[in-house]
């Protein structure tokens, strides 16, 4: 090995170091994250509504990141968040109120939206014949909410009981099938919104 060979090696290193250099990253970067829904409101009797989040990159493309950010409610006594496969489900746990919901990623990106829970004011009931003993009868129920929203379908969070003169055979939030068991002058139907919680509100109705 002569000095000329060593010089050749030096020359080789020089040429290798003079190759191409990428001058602008081909890897997209995060620009912002947002909760997609605006003006979010839900009825106190809603079971859950889905919310989604999206990331916007510096090339203006967007992707869903609903399951990849952390979701938090400003008032855990008013709203529960549950992660589903492609969205976050928010469920009211109080009759009315305002709160914020926030998404966060590594404390670097956040977005906050306000949520309004519509208060259930009263209920509307279809009638029954309390002298009809032994025949299943169905009561249909709708809700009247704040801001004069009337006859709204009820989806959840209401649980029903009836006094000892009748038996409920089938129930959901907006429909009850009951049977009058004996002669009586009235039947007391009790609806409990968010039962056994600090937010419980009772709605009672007497049928004559």
């Amino acid at each position, binding site marked *: 090995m002569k000095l000329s060979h060593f010089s050749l090696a030096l020359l080789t290193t020089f040429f290798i170091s003079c190759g191409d250099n990428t001058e602008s990253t081909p890897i997209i970067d995060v620009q912002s994250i947002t909760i997609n829904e605006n003006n979010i409101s839900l009825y106190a009797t809603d079971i859950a509504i889905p919310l989604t989040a999206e990331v916007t990159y510096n090339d203006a493309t967007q992707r869903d990141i609903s399951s990849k950010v952390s979701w938090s409610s400003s008032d855990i006594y008013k709203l529960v968040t549950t992660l589903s496969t492609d969205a976050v489900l928010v469920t009211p746990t109080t009759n009315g109120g305002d709160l914020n919901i926030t998404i966060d990623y*590594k404390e670097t990106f956040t977005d906050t939206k306000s949520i309004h829970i519509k208060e259930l004011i009263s209920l509307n009931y279809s009638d029954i014949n309390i002298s009809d003993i032994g025949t299943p009868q169905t009561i249909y129920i709708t809700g009247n909410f704040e801001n004069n929203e009337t006859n709204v379908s009820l989806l959840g969070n209401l649980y029903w009981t009836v006094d000892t003169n009748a038996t409920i055979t089938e129930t959901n939030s907006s429909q009850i099938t009951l049977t009058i068991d004996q002669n009586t002058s009235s039947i007391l139907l009790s609806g409990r919104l968010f039962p056994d919680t600090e937010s419980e509100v009772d709605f009672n109705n007497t049928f004559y």
Partner: protein
Amino acid sequence: MKQLLLILLFIPSLYADAKVYIGLGGGGFSESFHQIDASSSSEMASVKVGYGDRKAYAVEFSIDYYKNSSKIFSSSNDTTTDGDKIGFNINLMKSFDFNIYVLPYIKVGFGTGYLDIQRELQDRLTYGSFQGSLGVFLPLNDHFDFEVAYEVRENTYEAIDTIDTKTAYKSTTHLAYVGVNYRF
């Protein structure tokens, strides 16, 4: 763990005419990425400490500095390049004495390092590498020798976080190295 065991196994064979040596050198490198159309090339420098026989086996520790002239990871407009890379390597070497003027060798090892970047979610990337090289020692006397080598490195970088995906980019680096070693 396997690498550590290999190092321990090699230690007895190093005693024959083993010496401690220190080396200083530099070179040029060209790096190309696998998943993306990106490349980087520039100069590098290396300082190393080794122990072994110039004509047999040696174990070598080195700290590398790679100048960065490319912008592959950084997205900020505040910088025109990613940060320079600093790496640490452990290599095992086997050299051969064919009674010619030079002593050819092969070297394999692994390393780790980092570089500073400017992204929204990350400001530093670590990487790991496996490397192999072919080279020659050019002995000047019992203490000094020149070294010329060609090295290939397979690098895996820490994953880049874009929230939706986390991608660990891989690259191959070709490196030409010249240096000088002092043995004592």
